[in-house]
C-alpha cells in the first residue's frame, strides 16, 4: 500500500510536469491550449530525431530542443495567438485546436505511424530504480521527473510573483491595453510568456517520451490529465498544479487499488469532488445547491 502511495506521488510529479505549460498558459495567458499535447509530442520527436540520427542523448538534445521550443512559442504568440486572442476568449481554442490537428498530421506525414520512445536512448534509466526497505521500488526517472516538476513549478511561481517581468506577464494577461499604459510592452511580455510555456512543454515532451512511448497522435490523450491537474490546483497558482497532479495521481492509484478500472474513474471523480468542495467553501456549493429549490419558487 505504501508503495502504491509513493508511486502515486511520483506519478503526480509527472502529471504536474505535463500540466505545467498548460497551466501556465491557462492561468497566466488565459489561453486554453488544445495543442499542448501535440506540441509536447513534437518536442519528443525532435529529441528522438536527434538521438536516432545523430546519437545525441535526449538530455543533451534538450540543449538544442528547448531553445527551439522557446522560439516556437515566441513565434506562435506573435503570429497566431496574439492575433486570435484579440477576437475573444474562444478564438484561441479554435486556433490551438486547428494547430493540434496540423501538427499531429504533419508529424504523421514526416515520421509515419510507428511507435517511438526515447527510453532506448537513455540506457536503462527508464526502468532503473532504488529499492527501499519494505520492497518499495522508487524509479530513478520518476524521481528525476518529480524533482524537475518541483523546481520548474516553484521557480515559475516565484518568477511570476517576485520579478518585474513576471508581474508584467500577469498584468498583460489581465488587460493588455492597460498594461501598455503603465509601460509594459504587452506583445513582448506575451511572447516571453509563450516562450517560457513552450520550454516547459518541451520538457514535458522529453519526459513523456522517456517514460512511455509516443506516436504522432499521442498528444491528445495526455491533455485531459494535464487539464485536470491544472484545474484541481486552481487557476493562477502553479504550485497548485503540483498539488493538483499529486492529488489526481493518488486518486488514480488508489482507485486502481479498488479495481483496475477505478484508475481513470478515481481520477475523474476526485476532480469533480475537488471542484465541489471548492464551491462549497465559497458558499456556492452544497448550501447553494440546497437553497436552489426555494430560489425557483418566487
Amino acid at each position, binding site marked *: 500500500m505504501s508503495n502504491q502511495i509513493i508511486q502515486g506521488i511520483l506519478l503526480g510529479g509527472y502529471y504536474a510536469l505535463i500540466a505545467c505549460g498548460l497551466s501556465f498558459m491557462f492561468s497566466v495567458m488565459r489561453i486554453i491550449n488544445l495543442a499542448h499535447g501535440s506540441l509536447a509530442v513534437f518536442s519528443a520527436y525532435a529529441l528522438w530525431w536527434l538521438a536516432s540520427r545523430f546519437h545525441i542523448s535526449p538530455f543533451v538534445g534538450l540543449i538544442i530542443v528547448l531553445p527551439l521550443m522557446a522560439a516556437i512559442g515566441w513565434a506562435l504568440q506573435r503570429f497566431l495567438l496574439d492575433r486570435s486572442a484579440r*477576437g475573444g476568449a474562444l478564438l484561441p481554442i*479554435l486556433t490551438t485546436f486547428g494547430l493540434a490537428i496540423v501538427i499531429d498530421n504533419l508529424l504523421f506525414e514526416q515520421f509515419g505511424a510507428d511507435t517511438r520512445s526515447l527510453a532506448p536512448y537513455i540506457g536503462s534509466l527508464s526502468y532503473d530504480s532504488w529499492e527501499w526497505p519494505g520492497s518499495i521500488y522508487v524509479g530513478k526517472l520518476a524521481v528525476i521527473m518529480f524533482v524537475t516538476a518541483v523546481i520548474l513549478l516553484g521557480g515559475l511561481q516565484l518568477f511570476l510573483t517576485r520579478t518585474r517581468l513576471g508581474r508584467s506577464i500577469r498584468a498583460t494577461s489581465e488587460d493588455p491595453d492597460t498594461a501598455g499604459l503603465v509601460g509594459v510592452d504587452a506583445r513582448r511580455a506575451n511572447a516571453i510568456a509563450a516562450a517560457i510555456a513552450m520550454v516547459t512543454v518541451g520538457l514535458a515532451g522529453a519526459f513523456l517520451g522517456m517514460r512511455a512511448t509516443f506516436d504522432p497522435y499521442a498528444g491528445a490523450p495526455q491533455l485531459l490529465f494535464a487539464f485536470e491537474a491544472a484545474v484541481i490546483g486552481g487557476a493562477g497558482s502553479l504550485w497548485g498544479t503540483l498539488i493538483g497532479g499529486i492529488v489526481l495521481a493518488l486518486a488514480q492509484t488508489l482507485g486502481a487499488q479498488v479495481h483496475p*478500472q477505478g484508475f481513470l474513474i478515481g481520477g475523474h471523480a476526485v476532480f469533480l469532488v475537488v471542484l465541489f468542495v471548492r464551491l462549497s467553501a465559497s458558499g456556492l456549493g452544497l448550501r447553494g445547491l440546497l437553497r436552489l429549490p426555494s430560489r425557483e419558487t418566487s
Partner: protein
Amino acid sequence: MSASAPMSVIERGTATSRIAAIAVAVIIALLAIAPQVLSAGAVDRMTALFIYVILAAMWNALAGFGGLVSVGQQVFFGLGAYFAIRLADAGLNPFLALFASGIVVGVVSIPLSLFMLRLRNGEFAIGMWVIAALTHLLVNLDRLVQGETGTSLISLNVYDSGTRRATIYWLALASMTALLAILFGLLRGSTGAAIRAIRDNEDAAASVGVRVTGTKRLLFVLAAFGIGIAGALWLATSITFQPKTYFNVQWTAYMIFMVLVGGIGTFEGAILGALVFFLIETWFGGTGVWYLVGLGATAVLFSLFLPRGLWGTIEERFGLRLLPVGYRVRLAADTADGEATPSPQQTTMHQEKA
C-alpha cells in the same frame, strides 16, 4: 412611465429577414420531398448534414448566446446513442427509441446542471470534459456495451434499407427543424435577451431580476436534449455503437469548428458553419492526412483572418440579418409614417414552421 412612452418603434425583423423566413419555409418544404428525387448516397449525406446543423446550433446556443463554453458536449452525444441502444435492446421500436433517448438525455442533464452550472469559465469547460470522460467509463461498465467492444443497433435491420434511410432522413430533418424553431423562438423572446445578459454579466443579470440559474439550466437542458437526439440519429445512420467513438472529444471540437467558422453568437452562423464543415468533409475527406491538415489550417486561418466567422463578417459588411434575434429602436423622429404599435412585423418561426 407609459405616458411618456414616445412614438418610437421596436423593430425585430427587416425586409430581408421576412424574405428569408419565406425562403427558409420553402427550403424546408423542398428538403422534405427531397428523398423522392435524391440518390441514396445524397440522402445519407444530407442526414449527416442535418445532424451537424443540430450539433452546431446547440453548441452555439450554449456558448455563443449563453456564454457556457463546454468541451464536453460529447457526453450527450454519447448518451443519446447509448440510451437509444439500451431502449431498443429493451424492446422499444428503434425509431421510437431515438426520440425517447433524447428525452432521457435531457432528463439526465437536469441533475448534472445543478452542479455543473455553478462552475465558471474554464472550470465549466474542463469540468464538462471530465464528465464526458467519466460517463464514457461508466457506460463501458454496462454488460450490453461490453466495454470498448460496443454493440450494434441491429434491430433496425428488420426495415429494408430504402425505408430506413428515408425514415432516418425525415427524422433528422424534423428534429433539426423543430430544434432550430424552438431555439429561435427562445432566443427571440425575452428569455433570449436574458440568456445574452447572463453571458455578458451574470451578477448584473441577477440584480435586474433575471433568474440566472434557471435560465442557464433551460439552455443547458435544451442543448443536452438536442445533442442527445443528434447522437441517437447518428447511431441510427451508422448502427455501430463503440463508446470511444461517441464519447470522443472530437465531436465537441467539430462543434467548436463549425460555430466559430460560421460565426459565433449568430443564429445563421451555426447553420452556415455546419454547411462549411460538411462541404469540406464531402469534397476533401478523401485526401487523408491532407484533409486533416487542411481542416486544422482552416481553423487557424479563420481565427486569424475572420475572427467573427463567415456570418459575423457578412453581417458586419452588409448589415445583413436574416434571422435576427436582436432589437432595434427606430426613434420617433425618424418614423415619418408613425407606426406606433411595436412589433407588428415579425419574422416568426410560426410562419416558417407552416
